[in-house]
């Protein structure tokens, strides 16, 4: 037996990760020991934990630490990715608290799962060895499946989790097979020798047999990553998972989960690209990127559920981000990180608003439910507009400079056609973002829509069966509900409504002003939205400091 060499175990590189895991475990223990339904301690622990890990990662920037003989490293890229992930956890926790309280889910696992998943991502971004990366992938994914399922009273939540889990499991199988093939031909699972082998020209001199192993292996790895990033055609789980999963979990998934696979992508491309510019996987990723942005946009256009729309929007954005990865130069890769930051800001803001506008059990999440939001809540409508404009990449919001950054990188790499494709796609995406803005500002404030999935609604006691679709709006209006119902009957609008529902058209129904539902302003989420609003404008107007921050990653 080889004696343990204690001095060889250097844990500094692992410290942020271990801290995150500790926080997760601590939250779980606290949850087991507590007596009340109060979730405030969980929230506070999470916020403090996220800040500590982020600050610690920031403190480590500039050093290069290795653990386990270089299997896990802490370089600037991974540390900056850590900070991004922790930002996602911080805002995810903030968003989650209000949601859990409103939905009556008095369980603390939500916060612990965030941290577990985050630590998986941190393994992912700092690992230098394929098996460790696989471990990270699993550690990242399994808590996400649970997060999806965490709203136990919503059937969709369960459905989302099952779908995500099944497809995720297949991903893992792909990924593992890829690792096995690479190991089989290379004899190592370390990234460094593998990338050197690819870039030094040994690859071309290898036998066809070996080459085919490696090619298949890399393709499978890319497919595995593509699944996680929801790249078309491996995106099938995304719309369903996003629609079903609880709002804060979706916000976390949409914004933060992308960081980990993209950081790995950057790692792979940064080392290999300068040497083999015409490598086949570059072609593969270009194909995936073009498919992702184009089809993502096309699929997004007809969506009427806001969370589904955001799912497709996320897919599209991954396509744009991949443009930066493909560029492979410093500008493009910095752009990827910059894009991820602005994307995180905008998505957190959007989902904050989606939560505020929605009603318990996630009612009112059709885009038509945003009709006249400017009247019900001018602040939320304005904020939503600015977030959507940022996602669409319209100046002077942060999203514009992110696009500029990424596309400037691609242009520097002489990929003008790709930039043009991406820009044309940006125009298409404006269409569906504008649709939401149009509904918010130009829809009549008194309009509500009645298109709902009937099966998901509990039947009302005081309502005829055919009006069950209106029940959601009415029931949440507390005592007003009955008044509203009577009023609608008096006015005779309910008859039209029922017909409209049968025809499947989201026909608007007039509701008088005084009965309009104003979004409940949960203070924490509202703070989050306002913060993100300031951030999105500030980063848009003064992108310099953030650009400087992301440039550290590649120094």
């Amino acid at each position, binding site marked *: 037996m080889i004696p343990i060499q204690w001095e060889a175990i250097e844990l500094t590189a692992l410290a942020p990760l271990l801290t995150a895991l500790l926080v997760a475990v601590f939250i779980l223990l606290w949850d087991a020991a507590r007596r009340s339904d109060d979730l405030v301690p969980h929230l506070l622990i999470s916020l403090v934990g996220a800040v500590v890990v982020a600050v610690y990662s920031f403190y480590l920037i500039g050093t290069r630490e290795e653990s386990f003989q270089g299997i896990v490293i802490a370089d600037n890229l991974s540390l900056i990715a850590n900070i991004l992930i922790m930002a996602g956890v911080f805002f995810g926790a903030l968003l989650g608290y209000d949601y859990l309280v409103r939905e009556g889910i008095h369980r603390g696992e939500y916060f612990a799962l965030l941290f577990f998943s985050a630590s998986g991502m941190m393994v992912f971004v700092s690992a230098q060895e394929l098996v460790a990366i696989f471990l990270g992938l699993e550690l990242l994914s399994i808590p996400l499946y649970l997060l999806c399922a965490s709203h136990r009273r919503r059937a969709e939540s369960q459905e989302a989790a099952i779908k995500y889990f099944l497809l995720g499991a297949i991903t893992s199988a792909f990924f593992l097979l890829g690792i096995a093939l690479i190991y089989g031909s290379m004899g190592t699972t370390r990234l460094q020798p593998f990338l050197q082998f690819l870039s030094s020209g040994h690859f071309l001199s290898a036998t066809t047999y070996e080459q085919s192993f490696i090619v298949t292996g890399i393709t499978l790895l890319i497919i595995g990553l593509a699944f996680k990033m929801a790249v078309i055609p491996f995106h099938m789980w995304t719309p369903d998972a996003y629609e079903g999963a609880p709002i804060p979990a979706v916000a976390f998934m949409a914004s933060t989960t992308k960081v980990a696979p993209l950081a790995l992508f950057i790692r792979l491309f940064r080392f290999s690209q300068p040497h083999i510019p015409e490598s086949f996987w570059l072609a593969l990723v270009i194909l995936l990127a073009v498919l992702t942005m184009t089809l993502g946009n096309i699929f997004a256009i007809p969506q009427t559920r806001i969370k589904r729309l955001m799912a497709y929007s996320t897919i599209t954005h991954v396509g744009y981000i991949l443009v930066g990865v493909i560029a492979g130069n410093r500008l493009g890769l910095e752009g990827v990180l910059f894009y991820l930051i602005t994307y995180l800001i905008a998505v957190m803001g959007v989902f904050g608003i989606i939560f505020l506008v929605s009603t318990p059990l996630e009612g009112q999440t059709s885009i038509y439910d945003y009709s006249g939001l*400017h009247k019900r809540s001018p602040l939320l409508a304005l904020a939503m507009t600015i977030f959507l*404009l940022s996602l669409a990449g*319209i*100046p*002077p919001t942060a999203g*514009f*400079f992110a696009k*500029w950054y990424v*596309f*400037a990188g691609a*242009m*520097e790499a002489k990929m*003008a056609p790709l*930039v*043009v494709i991406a*820009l*044309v796609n*940006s*125009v298409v995406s*404006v*269409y569906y973002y*504008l649709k939401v803005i*149009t509904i918010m*500002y*130009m829809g009549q404030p008194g309009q509500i829509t009645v298109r709902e999935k009937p099966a998901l609604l509990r039947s009302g006691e005081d309502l005829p069966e055919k009006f069950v679709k209106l029940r959601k709006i009415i029931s949440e209006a507390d005592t007003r509900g009955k008044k509203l119902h009577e009023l609608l009957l008096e006015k005779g609008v309910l008859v039209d409504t029922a017909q409209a529902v049968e025809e499947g058209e989201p026909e608007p129904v007039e509701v008088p002003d005084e009965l309009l539902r104003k979004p409940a302003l949960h203070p924490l989420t509202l703070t989050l939205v306002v913060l993100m609003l300031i951030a999105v404008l500030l980063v848009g107007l*003064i*992108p*310099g400091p953030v*650009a*400087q921050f992301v*440039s550290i990653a590649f120094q």
Partner: protein
Amino acid sequence: MTLSASYFPILSVLIFFPLITAIILLFLRGEDEKLIKWSALVASLVEFLLSIPLFLGFIKGLSQLQFEEKYAWIPAFNINYHVGVDGLNLFLILLTTFLTPLALLASFESIKTRVKEFLVFVLILETGIIGFFSSVDLFLFYVFLEGLLIPMYFLIGIWGGERRVYATVKFVLFTLVGSLLMLAAIIYLWNVSLGHNLSYTDLYFMKIAPQVQLWLFLGFALSFAIKVPLFPFHTWLPDAHVEAPTLGSVFLAALLLKIGAYGFIRINVPLFPDVTQAFVPIMTVLAVIGILYGGVVAAVQPDIKKLVAYSSVSHLGFVVLGIFALNDVAATGAVLQMINHGLSTGALFLIVGMLYDRRHTRFLDQYGGIARVMPLFYVIFLIVAFSSMGLPGLNGFVGEVLILIGSYKTLPTMAILAAPGVLIAAVYLLNTIKKVMHGEIRIKENEKLRDISLREAWVLIPIVLVIFWIGIYPKPFLDRIAPSARAAIASASAAGSIDIREELIETFKSKKAKETSGQNEETRDPREEKLR
């Protein structure tokens, strides 16, 4: 580098004053409509007063930028906040500050819902337009260009006519398609320019291979052609104009359409001289088609607003022709004609808006005999219409004649083909006046229309005064425009000068008869001769 008034950042004040006012307005109570309206109006008047020093302090005879300001904005990318004024954009900025208070005053009574939001959007739009015209750095240029779409989108979409949502989405998407290709071109320029410098003053000195120029030219040109709008790209314009509220139409016609023409003479022509040379036939043919087609379509419109919208297509065709004639006189005329069109078409839309406020219809056959009940209104309408069709003594004449004379020198065929456009303009405008103003009053509601109120007189009379000023004494305008216009087209006309000279010699020899007839046309107004 700065030539004058370096001690006071007047351009930045002009750009951001409306925005700051808009932000302050946001915090006022929405119910207090009177206060909000008046504060917005006063703010826009102050803005106009602030812009007067720009005119007075402008040094004549210089083509360089004046009132220049340059601050580092995103140092890592060498992107600067760089603004400046020269003869090309001076009057466009002044036109913006001049028309905004008038348009605001005009909509005092027609805008009844969501007044606060309306005024906020108008002021933000003003910031966007002034910022766009004064930006020198192309990044800033693009930021303002897209930024001003947002308020315009809301102005049409919320306060527009029946099909407003369709019109506004169409407007935004059309514009975006063009401007995103322009963004690709700007990103490319940023990548290849020396020190990643995007100020156009520096880009002018850059040597770009003709092959690359072609793509860059196309990227910019498509964007500007949609904005102008040049002939096949104009379909968004009638929709947007018809559905927009009066103020929206005024801004759209008077200012937003100029973005395209300004972009051509500011970016396309000086930056890509070789390709500009090659594109002269295509651009001028499109411009002439626009002149004739726009005029003919305008002549058959039953809807006054649509009529004025199509007349814009025709008038802007003249401007594009003037720019791509690559001739000093024509270019000067084109820049002046941008202002003229802004004044006369802006006024026409205001007038149509006033009619609409009274009768709530835009159809010609609903009017008739209005001159009897609204005599003062009739006079003003007449003057504005004459200005639009280019009657001597009014502003439209100066611009159109300069364009025609100038382009005749370089592109005689095009000038001759375009000239009937002036006639067609007379046809549809006189016809409009006949149908609206003359004859018997056939419809009862028209009998009791009140003449223009004091408020409306305040809106129209300043414009009429400027129309006369430019028409009678255009020297202050031309003196300021000419050097910059000459500088803008210098490299492009030099780029192909050898070919052109040879061509010209050929033309001179073979078509002497036509040449003399052209000179007849030139001698029509001796004043123009002197100016040249």
